[in-house]
């Protein structure tokens, strides 16, 4: 278990490091540094800035140091939760992202729970009642779920909601709750609004999890240990739930680790379509405005979230499977 975990953490760290490098390069991309552009802006306003003042500003932002030192101080700030400064919006990134980060995490986590709660029972049912009507309908639905891209599904929901109910869906809060402090009413409001986004984001994951659970369970259902358990007189459903389902869940858990990156990915697009206050629309906005400081910070955070989510799934897998625990 420890070796396994250490390996996973190692890979997670390397991933974060690669992403941090990517983000940092991204931030360095614009020609000229912030101070130069600030000077141009000030000159446009008719102000006169001396070279000395500029130099002081550079020192203040640490732009006089060599690149690798800048990288180190940048990553140090990131680690301490200081996400940097959006020069385009002249606001600290922390203020821009604010609760968007929290809502992104919440959204992705809620979707994982949704996928599990929906896909596992359906997968089990489909496998145990193979070739039944339910199996066929879920398999068909599953195929469609995998094939319809998230953003098209989001569009479809938006359109249907608008045409048939006259409501414009989107957002995570009713207007009166957007800036309200956290309380039960606000959480309830959020829950109501999260429902459609979760379905949209969770559909393809649910569909693939159903397929995986079904396929694995079908493999397991005819293994000798199942026959052996049946031969010792176990009740059929108890037997299925205790043995083959347990084993079929392992690949399902490792799949969760695998779909987490997709969820963070997908949440970006779905959030844009459904205008959810997550990091997605901010990322798109920052890219369209070429605000690479903000984009870099978001990429880095998305990476960290993915790695942490993946790691949690890995730990769950380790707890579930003694073979991995001892590896």
């Amino acid at each position: 278990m420890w070796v396994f975990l250490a390996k996973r953490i190692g890979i997670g760290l390397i991933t974060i490091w690669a992403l941090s490098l990517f983000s940092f390069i991204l931030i360095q991309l614009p020609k000229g540094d912030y101070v130069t552009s600030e000077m141009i802006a000030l000159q446009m306003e008719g102000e006169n800035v001396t070279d000395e003042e500029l130099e002081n500003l550079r020192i203040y932002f640490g732009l006089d140091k060599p690149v690798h030192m800048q990288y180190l101080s940048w990553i140090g700030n990131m680690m301490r939760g200081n996400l940097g400064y959006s020069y385009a919006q002249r606001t600290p990134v922390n203020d821009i992202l604010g609760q968007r980060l929290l809502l992104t995490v919440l959204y992705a986590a809620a979707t994982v729970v949704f996928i599990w709660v929906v896909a596992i029972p359906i997968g089990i049912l489909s496998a145990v009642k193979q070739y039944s009507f339910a199996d066929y309908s879920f398999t068909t639905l599953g195929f469609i779920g995998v094939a319809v891209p998230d953003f098209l599904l989001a569009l479809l929901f938006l359109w249907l909601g608008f045409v048939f109910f006259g409501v414009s869906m989107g957002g995570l809060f009713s207007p009166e709750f957007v800036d309200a402090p956290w309380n039960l009413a606000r959480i309830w409001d959020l829950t109501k609004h999260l429902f459609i986004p979760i379905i949209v984001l969770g559909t393809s994951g649910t569909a693939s999890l159903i397929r995986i659970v079904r396929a694995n369970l079908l493999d397991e259902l005819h293994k000798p240990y199942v026959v052996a358990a049946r031969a010792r007189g176990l009740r059929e459903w108890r037997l299925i739930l205790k043995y083959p389902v347990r084993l079929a869940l392992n690949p399902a858990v490792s799949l969760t680790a695998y779909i987490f990156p997709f969820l963070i990915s997908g949440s970006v697009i779905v959030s844009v379509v459904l205008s959810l206050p997550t990091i997605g629309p901010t990322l798109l906005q920052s890219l369209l405005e070429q605000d690479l400081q903000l984009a870099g910070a978001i990429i880095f955070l998305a990476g960290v979230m993915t790695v942490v989510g993946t790691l949690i799934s890995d730990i769950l897998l380790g707890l579930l499977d003694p073979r991995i625990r001892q590896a």
Partner: protein
Amino acid sequence: MPKTSKVEDKTNKSDKHPERQVLEIRDLHTQFSTHDGVVKAVDGVSFDVIEGKTVGIVGESGCGKSVLARSVLQLIEHPGQIVGGKVLYRDYAEGEEAASQNDILALPSGGSEIRSIRGGHISMIFQEPMSSFSPVHTIGNQMVEALRLHKPISKVEANEQAVDWLHRVGMPNPSERIRAYPHELSGGQLQRAMIALALSTNPSVLIADEPTTGLDVTTQAQILELLGSLQEEQGMAMMFITHDLGVIAEIADDVLVMYLGRVVEEASVTQLFQSPQHPYTKALFTSMPGTGEIEDNRLPTIKGSVPEPHSRPAGCFFHPRCDSFMSGTCDIAEPELLAVNGQQKASCFLYSEGE
């Protein structure tokens, strides 16, 4: 052959008790519907399983012996189906002699009656002990589960009994091994655990489906010895399935030889080894190393190979491979299983001709 002395020992011993049938299998038919047609895996098999004795079932792979074993407990899965026959079970524990006879196959599948028979009255052990245990549960977990299904005992008691049984089957360090996962034990140890699990509920019949296949020779001998001594202690009946005539000699009292879903010869183990009647049985013996006459140092084989099970030959199924093939008889009519030599029965026209 060193085995013969052992064979004689066993026959002498079993003469002492009156014979009581625990299981009577009558005209059992199990078939599989596949893409290529219907496979009659068990095609009209009848025999008795007698208290305290072992009936060995021998045949090549694909002859239907495992399907036969599973049919007894209604363990046939889709696309297989038991289409006919009876498995009459008599429980002597409840009363004497004419204890009520139950047709296991008539019990509703998945119901509580069949479940109390499975593992309670009739236990089963399988080949590949490694895959017969769930890899993510401990040995103890699965043993306790079996015990508590069939005995009204607490978890602690069940655990004690499980440790006790592991001890009886010769598992070293049982109170620790009970917490082991299958991948932490060797094949031999796992088979011992499997036997402990199967016998811990005091069943009156043990069905052993190739329990020694895949184990090395030493372990194989130990497991056979263990089964023999436990059978003597418990007095249970045993149905022993194997493709290995050597194992049959070691453990069986009576033997059924199966070929393509049918019994071609039925005999006591002594009769079978001393005078096999059916040409197939004879061929099995000559293809066994260490018996028969060997010319130019090559092991004789049975000519041809087992036909595809969904397209069995007309007449006697064995005729295309038979050395005593009689044209016009064997390829037209199907022989019946008839007595040829006292208790010994064979299904072959060589013996019905004389009548």
